[in-house]
């Protein structure tokens, strides 16, 4: 399946884009997608530990299995206020 991935804040600069499409096999977890994206965009690597990942408008754990139609977002620690 092909899913849409969004980047926010300076992750847009690290990847050079605000969104990308990724084609992934069934059973792919968020952790797998994160590895795939770090390979595609090496500058995401150093941010690995602090990267936050959401599916739609909810945070999801690394073992969440991605489903058809999910929109995934990756971003650095939040800084509202």
């Amino acid at each position, binding site marked *: 399946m092909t899913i849409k991935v*969004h980047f*926010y*804040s*300076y992750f*847009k*600069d*690290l990847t050079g884009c605000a969104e990308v499409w990724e084609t992934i096999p069934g059973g792919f977890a968020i952790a797998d997608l994160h590895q795939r994206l770090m390979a595609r965009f090496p*500058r995401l690597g*150093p941010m690995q530990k602090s990267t*936050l990942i*959401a599916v*739609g*408008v*909810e*945070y999801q754990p690394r073992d969440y299995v991605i489903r058809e139609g999910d929109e995934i*977002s990756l*971003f*650095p620690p*939040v*800084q*509202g*206020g």
Partner: protein
Amino acid sequence: MRRQLSITTAPINETVLLGQRSLSSDMGAVVYFLGVVRGTEQNSIITGLHYEAFQSMAEHQFEQIFQEMEKRWPIESVRLIHRLGMLKVNEPSLWVEVVAPHRGEAFAACQFLIDEMKRVVPIWKKTLKPGEGRVPRVPEA
């Protein structure tokens, strides 16, 4: 619990917001928090901040925080405005109002809301330094 949430590029107008306050006769305490852009960020002089949000997720995360507040305290209403876009030093970026029967719960709920916002609501800021049009977004290694 009534709630009003606005994540917006429009300036925060405190006077207008005060004029829209509604308070039933059982309410004895109103706590406000105003977050203001400071002239320094990590000990460097800055001229402003640029705020960006993942808007739909930010609204959803705020709603979840509001639901938790409602469970914990007998709050009558909460209103929160978060600015987006370019803000100068001394401009307010955040305005919060919590109305409750007593001060203890009003203070606790207001602080909870801000603490939770800083933990989960997807909003980010970039610093603008003197002489720069825009600062690079990537933090230095």
